[in-house]
């Protein structure tokens, strides 16, 4: 655990040193703020004291921003050879990968924390469903976790960052909408499976205010599966 924290701290520092963190914060807050308050199906148009429109925007913007954060993380280690440096220090590959996961997750959590003023503002405007807001944030966090983990897996495959980015989007889009769309055209077991695989199904049910263990298990298994696959690929590369 101590090692993971040391590694994660380095990752976080490199996010902030490389302006990546600031770019994410500015882009995410600007994007979500614009569509939540100023344009489109914003809060004033909906006319309800609810953060649903924000969650809808964040659901999409995080989907695009996260691969940008993860694309280089393992690809760069492989390309520059720093992974060799880490692997000859007393840390395991699993610790390296989880530290990258945790630091990115923390960065997303910081970005989400900056949107808490939205919550406070809306809460002063009218009666808000506090439970739904918190579960909505939980849903965003879990979704981000899943995409970070997928992004790390994508980043482990090629030494090229762009490949990491596109591959993460490609895998992500399946969970994000494709499985959902496909499940509508199938019935029976296949439809059920596709519906269960669709990330949006689980995200919607959580952000509506229902925390179901089924959904938690879904997100956690996606996270673990992504990280384990990334480790598998990295081990294969070393031989």
């Amino acid at each position, binding site marked *: 655990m101590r090692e993971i924290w040391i590694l994660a701290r380095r990752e976080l520092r490199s996010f902030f040193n490389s302006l990546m963190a600031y770019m994410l914060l500015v882009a995410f807050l600007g994007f979500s703020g614009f569509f939540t308050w100023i344009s489109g199906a914003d809060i004033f148009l909906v006319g309800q004291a609810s953060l649903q429109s924000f969650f809808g925007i964040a659901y999409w913007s995080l989907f695009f921003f996260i691969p940008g954060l993860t694309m280089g993380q393992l690809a760069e280690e492989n390309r520059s050879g720093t992974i060799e*440096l880490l692997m000859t220090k*007393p840390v395991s590959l699993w610790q390296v990968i989880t530290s990258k996961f945790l630091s990115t997750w923390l960065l997303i959590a910081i970005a989400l924390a900056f949107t808490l003023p939205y919550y406070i503002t809306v809460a002063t405007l009218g009666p808000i469903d506090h439970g739904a807001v918190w579960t909505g944030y939980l849903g965003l966090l879990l979704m981000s976790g899943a995409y970070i983990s997928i992004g790390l897996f994508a980043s482990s495959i090629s030494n090229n960052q762009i490949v990491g980015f596109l591959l993460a989007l490609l895998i992500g889009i399946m969970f994000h909408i494709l499985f959902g769309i496909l499940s509508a055209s199938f019935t029976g077991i296949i439809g059920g499976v596709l519906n269960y695989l669709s990330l949006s199904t689980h995200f919607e049910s959580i952000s509506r205010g229902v925390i179901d263990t089924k959904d938690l298990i879904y997100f956690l298994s996606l996270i673990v599966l992504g990280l384990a696959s990334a480790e598998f690929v990295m081990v294969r590369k070393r031989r």
Partner: protein
Amino acid sequence: MDILVENLTKVYGSQRAVDNISFRVKTGEVLGFLGPNGAGKTTTMKAITSYLTPTSGEIHVGEYSVTDEAGDVKKQIGYLPEQNPLYGDMPVLDYLKFVAEIQGIKKEHIKSRMLEMVKVCGLEDEKHKKINELSKGYKQRVGLAQAMIHDPEVLILDEPTSGLDPNQIIEIRELIKTIGREKTVILSSHILAEVEATCDRILIINKGQIVADGTANDLRKQAQGQEILKLTIEEGDSNTIFETIKGLDTIDTVDLMDEENRFEIQSKSNMSSRRSIFNMCVEKSWILTEITLVETKLEDIFRELTMK
């Protein structure tokens, strides 16, 4: 801490990068790996650091097995990889601190170790710069500093002096020698003079196999089956001298180098002709102005062993 490598083999696809190598390095010994590109030096070193898993064979660092107790082994090893990968976006001091923490150095010692490494590796003026902004030589020093920061029992340096200027090369060689008195050091190099200057023992590897093992002098003796002398005799008829030398019973071949009575002679194996030549000159009253023993250069040994 001793390093024991037993029957190490590493196969990549159909290529045997390292083929059944066995050797032992003792504490207080500096071992130099020599060999042409692709001979298996780096692979062997990576296997010792546990970065690569051997196809077969056993490596022990001290009492720890590299395959089974990699965690313990890694704590004992300081490693400078060949490409010297570094996190370019980090300032030198931050980077050294990061490595020190990862190596599990106690918090209260971290600062003093960092400062010592900065001093030893000559990074005083560059310590606040980002690693990307450093020249190759300074990057190499950072690589050395991170390898030594936890005062490891075993140092593995893959081409430690590449990219350094001549002054720095000498400093680093001295440093390696000093460390090598108490610790175990393995280094690889293309530069033969460097290996000769720094290492107690030399291991020449070619095509994944050890082709020579010993001190620089051992290797010379091994290759130097026959003594070669250059001599110049002033005045006198070159033909007479030639014939007389040829008549000595220790001589194998004689060559007249040029008109000024310069000869290159090769003695029969395991014999020396220096005495008999001197005696011959005294007897004939020839004036011997030069007699030089031609040392087989390490370069020649290297070429001979690795061109096969």
